[in-house]
């Protein structure tokens, strides 16, 4: 047990380190790195513009080594675009994102799984199709349009994330549940008069549980990445909005730290769901 946990921890650490290095490389070689909007300020003299321009463009390995060293002391560097320590920025904004993502995932799963269960168990082609159209419409709506609609309706903007995540969960859940439902033994049980709720819980949801858990793991990562445009569009002061500003400003310290954070969340979510899925699978065997 301890050995497996240690292996898992090592795997997480190596993946995080690699993620940080790859993010550094991507950002460093992207066009516009080192550029500052202030360069276009016509009040600035040539010397001032040169000072803005000639920021030291460190070697990637050197930068990353120094970044990791500082990380050991809890120093995530300083944001070039917001002129503040990265740790402070993340500490201020993470609770906001956790609220949005938490609510988005909770509502996304409750609505998505409920609608999928109803669509599947009702055995009505029309209902199935209508649910598909409803979710399809939400998928086809750009997040910006959803955000404006929510603002017009004076509804909490946080719900935009739920509206973006729920249709995806619905599609995956619906297909998995439908596959379970169409198994011969389930059809037999239904024909023999087994109640819908019992059928749903024991013979439809349960066999699909490991796959649904995998969807849950991926949905956590999906929710975090969806939070970036949603927070930027809805002006929610979370980590997603920070990530967008950092991307537009090529803010290396902030981007690397955020990538490491998102990688950690993805790894933990997926590993946890995988572990639970394996336990469920073992129990059934």
């Amino acid at each position: 047990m301890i050995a497996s946990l240690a292996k898992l921890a090592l795997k997480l650490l190596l993946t995080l380190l690699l993620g940080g290095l790859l993010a550094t490389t991507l950002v460093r070689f992207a066009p516009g790195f080192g550029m500052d909007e202030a360069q276009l300020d016509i009040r600035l003299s040539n010397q001032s513009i040169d000072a803005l321009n000639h920021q030291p463009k460190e070697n990637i390995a050197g930068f990353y080594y120094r970044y990791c060293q500082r990380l050991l002391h809890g120093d995530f560097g300083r944001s070039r675009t917001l002129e503040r320590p990265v740790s402070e920025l993340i500490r201020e904004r993470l609770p906001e994102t956790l609220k949005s993502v938490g609510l988005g995932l909770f509502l996304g799963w409750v609505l998505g799984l409920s609608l999928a269960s109803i669509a599947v168990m009702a055995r009505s082609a029309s209902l199935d199709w209508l649910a598909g159209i409803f979710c399809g419409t939400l998928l086809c709506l750009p997040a910006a349009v959803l955000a404006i609609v929510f603002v017009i309706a004076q509804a909490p903007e946080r719900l935009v994330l739920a509206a973006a995540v729920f249709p995806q969960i619905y599609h995956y859940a619906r297909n998995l549940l439908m596959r379970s439902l169409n198994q011969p033994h389930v059809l037999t049980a239904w024909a023999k008069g087994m109640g819908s709720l019992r059928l749903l819980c024991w013979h439809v949801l349960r066999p699909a549980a490991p796959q649904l858990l995998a969807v849950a793991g991926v949905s956590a990562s999906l929710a975090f990445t969806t939070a970036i445009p949603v927070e930027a569009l809805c002006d929610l002061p979370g980590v997603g909005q920070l990530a967008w500003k950092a991307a537009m400003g090529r803010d290396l310290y902030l981007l690397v730290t955020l990538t490491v954070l998102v990688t950690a969340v993805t790894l933990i979510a997926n590993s946890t769901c995988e572990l639970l899925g394996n336990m469920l699978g073992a129990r059934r065997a």
Partner: protein
Amino acid sequence: MKNNFTLRLLLTVFVFASGALAQSGGELRFVLHSEPKTFNPVLMEDDSSESIRYMTGGVLIRVNRQTQQPTPELAQSWKVSKDGRTISFELRPDLRFSDGTPFSADDVAFTMKQLMDPALHSPTGDMFRSSQGQMQVNVSSPTRVSITFSAPIADSVKSFDQVAIMSAKSPQKEMAVLGPFYVAEDKPGAYIILKRNPYYWKHDAQGRQLPYFNSVRLDILQSQDTEILRLVHGQIDFINSLSPDYYDKLEAENPALVHDAGVSLDSEFMWFNQVPGAPIPNYKKAWFASTNFRRAISEAINRPDMARIVFKGHAQPAVGVVSPANKFWFNSQLRPHPFDQKSALARLRQAGFVFQDGTLKDRDSHAVEFSIVTNANKNRERLATLIQQDLAGIGIKINVVTLDFPSLIDRMTNSYNYEACLLGFVNDDLDPNSEMNVWLSSSENHQWDPKQKTPATPWEAEIDKLMREQASTLDQNKRKKYYDKVQQIVWEQEPFIYLINHDALSAVSPTLQNVHPTILRPQVYWNIDELSLNQQLARNR
């Protein structure tokens, strides 16, 4: 005589009445479109930080946004020496910063020293730094200070509008301010709250201390859609700068809400890459270097359509460098280049181009095709699309490429890997001195061909000479003559093809009183200390 007296009487009654009606208290609410980077007035360079500086900073001289003239603020009077190198201020006595620290001439000296520190690269400091040499500040008494520059700075007085005085002694450092408000709370990414400065020196005609509002709440919102909806729902009091699409929409719902202060100082323009070492084909460099080519492009563009379609009539075709809103400096002899595709083709034929089967080709049979890069701004994308159709009329194929801002800046200032660029110019200053870094050929911001060791063309050499001459003389009429000539040359040579000057549009809630939107920034809240709430509506808030 009788009419004059009546008018003066009415005016006095009006002033007293508006003062009497002005409701004290309440919170003013509006939006900033980005988070301020700093509260240090010397380092401020982004719009949001400068907005905070305007509301919190005390300045020696303020340019009245309505009259466009300098008015005394912390300095009750000033005098500029005959040689234009020294400006002497007589400060108001017994003033205090927001934390109670007394204000004196030492604070002015401290601020100027900070500003001119070359290591800080302050944009405001760079404006004063017209030549090599040190600036000297002489404090002769707690209320008398003089500043001597190494060379004459024409019209330096108005530049003090951007110098917010900092305390040399306060433990709060740059957070101790002399303006009507001070920063009380800052929730990063969400909002900033300013509270009224208890030591603010201004009083109204009835002797009541200004500002009228107790506080100002600034929500940080990037989206103008959300801003509009907040105004409609009564959650904010005004929108300082409104896009023409939203103006028409709000006007249809409530005409009293919107204001068009008239044509602003801002412009939209495009230019061709004339950097000799740019990584673009030589034949294209030859096109862009040709004055006839640039003039032809300018004449083939339909500016009235741009004003009407993109800006919904809230704009006018641009003449050149200076907007007609800049009444003194605008060269009124010049007119916008007319939309005339026949004349454009004639110029192109003169330059050796041939228009055949709907395609324009150069001497070497290269079809004329180039790209226009711009940033992701809806109106600029629309302008570029209109240009695409206009130039198709003379056989030129245009590719419109929108880029994110850092990528765009990289191409413009670093790699020079672009052919034409379309951007806007946001102008806060009336004086041509503020544009030195655009017109001097050696400058980094001489966009079409920056950092020239020697002027590449005779007309650029002429512009260099004229700009230096106007900067070194104090005679406004002489300066006007020199700058008129600069405008004439730019109009003829078209290094920048000026397209449009758009109007200054804003939206204001009826709850707000004493609002007089102007074209100079900040359009709506330039007199923030005199803004107040409508009494009736204030009770309901």
